[in-house]
Structures are given as structure tokens and as C-alpha cells.
């Protein structure tokens, strides 16, 4: 069964939800202008805590940087929340920057038609 390690199919494509052993704490708020690390799990189950974390940054006058490099899993609920955050920041004339790459997030955003709103860095660049 070694095929699964070397096969053409990357392991991240598996749709089966892994055991939810990761702590439910989705976000870690850093009050300084340092990047906000989005947790690995960004699904409907984690959306509430993610919202709490993002809400604190909503009125931050600095440029908010979201570090998405850790994101492993995301669903529409998670993406809706992030998109909402970005849109609201923009409505207030404030920017959101991205740090790191999250292929899962980028794919999801494209599929849901949210790519243009999020303005994620081009995949080709970040995946390097």
C-alpha cells in the first residue's frame, strides 16, 4: 500500500475528515500589527471562534495581515467568513494582506466565485 505515498494523488485531496484531534481554538489574536494566524481548520465548526478573532481586527487602523499558511481545511462557512471580513474591511477603506499560501483556500475561493473578492496572491507564485 505504498502507492499512497508516492502516487500521483496528493494526500491532501482526501475528502474524509481527519479525526478532530486539533484543538478547537481556531485563531490566535496578536494585538500588535503582526500577522493574524488563521488556524488549520476553517470549517463551520470553527467558524464561531474564527469570527471572534477576526472581529477584533475589523477596525484595526493598520493593514491587517492574515497568515493563511497553516490552513489545511476550509469549507464554505469558513470562506464566507473570511470573504465577509475582507469585504467589510474594504468598505471601511482598509486593506487586508495575505501572508503564506493556502492552496486549499485558493481552490475553494475560485470554486465559490470568491477569488476576485479575496484577491489572493497568484497560486503559481505562492506555491513555489
Amino acid at each position: 500500500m505504498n502507492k499512497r505515498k508516492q502516487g500521483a494523488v496528493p494526500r491532501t485531496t482526501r475528502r474524509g475528515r481527519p479525526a478532530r484531534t486539533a484543538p478547537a481554538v481556531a485563531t490566535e489574536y496578536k494585538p500588535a500589527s503582526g500577522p493574524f494566524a488563521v488556524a488549520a481548520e476553517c470549517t463551520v465548526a470553527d467558524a464561531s471562534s474564527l469570527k471572534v478573532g477576526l472581529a477584533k481586527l475589523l477596525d484595526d487602523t493598520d493593514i491587517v495581515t492574515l497568515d493563511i499558511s497553516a490552513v489545511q481545511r476550509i469549507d464554505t462557512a469558513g470562506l464566507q467568513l473570511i470573504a465577509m471580513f475582507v469585504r467589510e474591511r474594504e468598505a471601511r477603506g482598509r486593506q487586508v494582506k495575505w501572508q503564506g499560501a493556502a492552496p486549499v483556500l485558493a481552490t475553494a475561493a475560485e470554486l465559490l466565485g470568491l477569488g476576485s473578492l479575496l484577491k489572493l496572491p497568484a497560486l503559481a507564485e505562492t506555491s513555489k
Partner: protein
Amino acid sequence: MTIDLTQFHDAFFEESFEALDSMEAALLKLDIGAPDSELINTIFRVAHSIKGGSATFGFADIASFTHSLETLLDELRSGGMQVTLSISDLLLKSVDVMRAMLRSVQAKQPLDAQRVSDLQFDLELIIAQKNAAAATTHTVMPAAIAHLAASSAPASCAAAAASPPAELASASSAAATGAAAAKSAQRRWEISFRPYRELFARGNDPLRMMRELTELGELDVNVDLSGLPSFAELDPQACYLAWTVGLTGDVSEESIRQVFEWAEGDCDLVVRLLDAPVAVPATVRASEPEPTSAANPVVADAILSASAPPQETKADLAVPAHAAAPALSVVKQDSKADAPLSALGDSGSIRVSVEKIDELMNTVGELVITQAMLSQLGAAMEGPNAEKLRAGLAQLERNTRELQESVMRVRMLPISFVFSRFPRMVRDLAQRLNKQIDLKLTGEQTELDKTVLEKIGDPLVHLVRNSIDHGIESPEVRVAAGKSPAGTVHLDACHRGGNIAVEVSDDGGGLDKDRILAKARARGLVGPTDVLTDDQIHDLIFVPGFSTADKTTDLSGRGVGMDVVRRNVKELGGKIELRSERGRGSRFIITLPLTLAIVDGQSVAVGTETYIIPLISIVESMRLKEASISRLSGRNEVFSFRGDYLPIIRLHELFGVEPRARALHEGLVVIAEGDGRRVGLFVDDLLGQQQVVIKSLEANYGHVEGVSGATILGDGSVALILDVTGIIHAASLRAAA
């Protein structure tokens, strides 16, 4: 607003487990190479309905897994892939995994997620490999998707996107779209997908649906953000987004709708063919967007979504301004998640709770008693109309009996419900033990009470394992013994005199009496010089902790021994016997009552009291001769019976009743068996045998040792039903004094 769906969980689990059983049975019947398409359809339907149900109830893991399974099954169904042995094994494993997942959700227990994801991986790998192979001949690959696929999109979806499966476009849907459909295989669809807020809570994820759409063709996704509230007001668990998706590909409306099947009832969905340019109505909703409970499909809507061809729908709903709109279908989708499941049960049947049936049983029991009382009264009646009355009462008696039997039959299920698990089990065990085994099932239609049926499964499993593990020899040994290399395990069920006999027999090596005896001697269970009959030796294997297996395998001999089998059978009011011949095989015969609500009893008289002894506990009844009685240590009375000395239990002493007969030769002994021991119950007289309805003594009073319940006799009086095992237990405490 979230609707509490948990109330429907039980029905879902029950139906799913039943469906999995039928899926497993179908898989086992599936011929490699030349599979029966009807069987594959059955298997597909099971996976499909479990997927739908689990999505509805928010069991995302199960939904996701079954989705992968369904994809593979769809390939098999359409002939895109062939059923191979490895696929068949994979599908059987999937049945196990789905069972485990359902059980873990049901019991709210954690699950071995690794096992699930490993298997899901294998499933997707097979599909991906197939699609990858197909992709070399298809070059249609939407650029955006290709771009994503190259970086990180799920392989199965990327590969599938590279090759829109042509077989998904079914002939019927092509017909449905009619003349409006372009001759070209490529069609342009517009999908308006407007989820309700609760979509996420139901375990649905639009992302997953979009991924599936990419498998169908090229996508143009436009998101509608107008429903979004302010960030502060946003409920992170609610869905505010809506989409309009353009889809180009050789796809039928049906296959598009299939993608959104899980979300039925949780969204407004409009699928339109765009070949003629049409203005889109801003919002097209057939009815109130207020979601209704998943279990309460609005009938009209269900019919609409289930059967109305698009043209008819259009006639009803097309707005005059868009009269030119071709093939517009608008469906307010309401969940019919449970419809496919119930469609599995082929005949017209309804689910009734066991409590209701028990209530019915009780009432009929009363009726029987009342009828018996009336009959007694009628028999004593004199006068001009007495004959007519008696004729009427006789009619009443017949009708009452028939009614009682019919109600009892409602609780009866064929034993095939239990037998059906064995083909799979035997197949797996034989593989693991390198034995060749033919399983023979007969009498599967024999019916018995649901409660009995539920409890007989485990003992039978143990017996069958035992036969395969210890009974059937390896092919080499069998051939050397002049037998065919394949052993036979035979399960049989039949009616036998008011009881059900279930037999597990094999043509294996049989029991080695010498070894059993040697072991029993070594353990001090049998004295070194005692001579035992064959029956007595066979009885030894039912002694707790007794096992003759050379090595403990993980199959049997794990401490759960024959003693447990016997105890389980006893708890059902049944008994188990063993016949075995060295070198020829063994035969276990389980005798069970038809039902637990009624018992065949022998009425006995002790003083003025009447007791009922269950017939199944009775070996024989006899009058004692003085010569056959001896007294041990002055007080304990025994009598000889077929070479054994059995203790005598005087029921009048045990129950504190004034007897008519005190001298043993004046009364009778009923030789009864309980817990593997035989005793003689001393009674005044035998009264007759009859079926009695078992009533609880504990409902208003409490448990009484030696009494299992009570019943109401024809004259309306109460008789206690004896529990022979309890009596032996109570008496042995006394006798020990």
C-alpha cells in the same frame, strides 16, 4: 433557526442498517466479471440513500465517504468500470466502514477515522486511475480548472474534470430537454443555487457541490453577496451566499440535479438550459422559502420534483415575459432524503413500534381470557336460547384464536434476518483460516418472534465460528480422511411441535470425546474413575471456561465459550443439545419458543394452587416407586432416573403450600431441566397442557424467586409460571443446610 432533526435519527439508523444488510447480501451475490445490473443498482441505491440521509442529518463524514463510494458504484453501474475481485472486496469493506461510522454516530462514540480515510482513499484512487486513463483520450479541460488542478485540487475531481463522463448524460434527460436541446453534445446550463441559511447546519457544503460540478464540465461561478449582513450580525454557521453557475458540458439536467441532491429542502434550485438566450427572472421561487422539516416533505412539491418533466413545470411557472424560455424548470425542493430508503423496501409496509404491538398483544390476551370465561358460563347455560348462545360463543372462540395468532404473527420475522449475516462471515473466516467452506442455509423463511430473533444472533455466530474454526478441518486433512476438500456448514431452521429448532451442523472432525474427558479430569470436573455417557461428555463443553481448542485463535476460544451460548439460549426459554460423531461432524440443535409473550405450559396442582411449568423445561413426568427413592444424609431425597440420581424438590415445601400428598409415591414428579441440571419437582397432580399468556408479576408487586411471571387461567384466576432454574437455585441453597 435550526430544526431539531435528532428525532428522525433513529429511523435513519434503522433504515440504513437494514439497507447495508441488503447491500452486503447483493455484494455477496455479485458475480465477478458478469455482474447482474439489478444487483449493482440495489447496491448503488443503498449508498445513494445513505449519502442523502447522512447529508440531511449533518453526518458529513458519512456523507463524504458514501459520496466516494457512490462515484465508484456509478462507474460500475454505467459499465465504465468492471467489477473485479479487488473492487468487490473494497465494496464489502465499505459496508463495514459505513456500519462502523453509523454506529459511532449513533452511539456518539469516536471512530477510527484512519480506517475510514484509508478506505476512502482507495476508493477515490480507483476512480482517479480510471479517469486518468480516460483523460488521455479527452482533451477538454477548462483552463481555470486545469490551473487549479495542477496545484492542489482534489485529484479525483481534477481527473474527472479532465474527462466529463459521457455516461452521465442519460437518454431520458436528453428526451426531457426535448427539441430545445442543441444537437451538439456541449450544452450550456445556468444553475441558480440559493441555499437557505440552514444549509451548513445540515452538513452541506456548497464547496463540495462546486467541486462536483467541475466534474461535469466547465464552470463559470458567480457569487451573489447581496444576502450578507454586516460582519457583526453574521451568524458564522449560517449560509448567506448564493450562486449563479454557468456550466458547459455534455451533461443532463438530471446529473446536475444529482449534485445538489444532498441539499434538497435546504435551497432553491433552478436549472436552465441556455441554448436560446433568455432573460433570467430575478428570483424564481415556487413557494415560501421557509424551510420545512426534512421529514415532512410537502407532497405536491415532492411530486413535482420527483416526476414532473421540465416542460410541464414550465407551463405552470413560466412568466409571460419569458415565454420563450426553453425548458425552464423550477423546483422548490423539499427533502426526500428518506424516500429512496423506503423505496428499498419493495412491498407496501409500514413501521410500527414494538410497544404498540405489545399493547395489541395484551388486549388480545384479555379478550382470550374473557372469551374463555364466557364459554364456561355458556356451557352452564340452560333455556331456549342456550344453543344459539353456545354457537355464538364457539364462533367467538374461533375468531379470538385467529386474532391472537394474527397479532402474534405481526411480531414474527423470518430467521433469514439472522442467517443473512453468515455468507459474509463464513467467506471472511474461510479466507483467513485457509479453509474451504460451503455454507448451506435452509429454512430461512421460518418465522420467529422479533425479540427471540434479536437475541439468537450472537449464539448462532458463535456456533458457526466454532464449526469453522474447530469443526471443519483444513483441506489437506480432509482429503487425507477421504472427504471432499471443502467442508460444509449447514444452518437450518424449522418448526418443531410449537417450537422453533435451529441447527448448526458441520461435516468436520466432530468432538474428540477422549480429549474432552481427559481435560475435564485434569481440571477436576470429573473424577478420575467416573464413567460418563456420550451425552454427559458433550455436556462438558457447556461448562464455563471449558475449551478444547489447541491454540486460542481470535475467532473462538476467547473465553466467550459455549457456556455463554447456552446461557443466552436459556434466557430465551430455549435449550441447546449437541450430537457429534468423531470424524463425521457435529450438530448443535437449539430449541426456542416461538415467542416470549406466550409459553406452552404444563399445569400442575400443589394443594389448592395451580402452577405452570414451561414445557420446554420438562423432560418427563412420572409416578415414583418407593424403591427408586433414596435419602441422602437423612434429609435430601433423590430418585433414580435413567441411571442418574436426581434430587427431589417438593414444591409445597419451597412455596409454603399445604399439599394433598406428602408421601412421594402418592404424587408425581415432573423431571425438569434448568441450568444444565435435572431435578424432580414433586407435585400433587398434573392438570393439563396449554398455551398461556405471560403476565408480569413485577408491574404491581416484585420479583419472586422461582417464579418467572404469572398468567390468567380460563376461569379468570391467576397461576404462577415457574422458573425452573430459579427453583433449582433456591432449593440448592436449602438443601445445602
